């Protein structure tokens, strides 16, 4: 499977995701944001970081960069797109995913491992997880507070477009397990066609027992499945 990682000035998880993808046997290429052509890819990853220093709004400037037109074209023709952290923020700014990410309710940058529940396993991104599986992943963000309008929220629920929710160790989804104030503890969502996933937690940081755990592995192996 061929993957491309888009790199912006200020991206800082681009090499981590490249290491994770290569470990999982993806044939990966890095693509600078000024490129106007994308290499043939089955998966495009928009990595975490602080593209353009979060100027204006997180992801706003990157969302208008040259390569993004190609990403939108690829997305519309069914290519798989994964946006992690700042990548999720960028995807909402491009309109590929609805909703937005507000500043954390606590006004603090949060960097910690949290538990999330896999809410839908019938997708290209999650099919190797078990239904309702609880996994532990790192979050590291200042704007992760997912917000959207009531109509979209209803659509997310009806169409099973919520990918992950923040939960307790035992899986309970309660306010106390919500690190950033996200609407209904939402940590990641799909678009209607489920070929785009945006998520705040970092699966690329969870692929090696030596440094964390392997809870992110199944996301990548799902894509290969």
């Amino acid at each position: 499977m061929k993957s491309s990682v888009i790199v912006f000035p200020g991206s800082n998880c681009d090499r981590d995701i490249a290491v994770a993808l290569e470990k999982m046997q993806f044939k990966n290429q890095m693509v600078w944001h000024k490129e106007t052509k994308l290499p043939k890819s089955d998966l495009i990853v928009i990595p975490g970081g602080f593209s353009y220093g979060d100027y204006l709004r997180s992801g706003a400037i990157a969302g208008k960069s040259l390569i993004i037109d190609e990403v939108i074209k690829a997305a519309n023709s069914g290519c798989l797109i994964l946006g992690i952290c700042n990548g999720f923020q960028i995807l909402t700014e491009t309109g590929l995913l609805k909703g937005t990410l507000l500043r954390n309710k606590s006004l603090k940058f949060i960097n910690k491992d949290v538990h999330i529940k896999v809410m839908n396993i019938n997708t290209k991104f999650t099919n190797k997880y078990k239904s309702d599986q609880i996994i532990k992943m790192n979050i590291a963000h200042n704007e992760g507070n997912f917000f959207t309008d009531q109509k979209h929220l209803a659509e997310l629920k009806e169409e099973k477009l919520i990918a992950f929710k923040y939960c307790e160790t035992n899986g309970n989804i309660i306010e106390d397990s919500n690190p950033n104030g996200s609407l209904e503890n939402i940590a990641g969502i799909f678009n209607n066609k489920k070929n785009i996933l945006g998520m705040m937690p970092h699966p690329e940081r969870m692929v090696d027992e030596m440094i964390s755990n392997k809870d992110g592995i199944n996301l990548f192996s799902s894509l290969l499945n």
Partner: protein
Amino acid sequence: MKFAVTVTLKKDVLDPQGKVVQNTLANMGMDKLKSIRQGKHFEIDIDEKNASSAEKKVNEMCKKLLVNLIIEDYKINKIE
């Protein structure tokens, strides 16, 4: 032609920064304070003689980049 654009979070969107500023001012003894919403301010100079077409361009800038319409409102004022 110069315009000022003010961007604020919509009324029903939580504005934690505004809230913190509000609470701090209240703690400082500003007892008549009712509420504070924090926002952004842009000053835009545009090379255009016709006011309505200039404002149209500023409006387009707001919609396409400066404002996230899901969570923010904006006001355009001609200043020069």
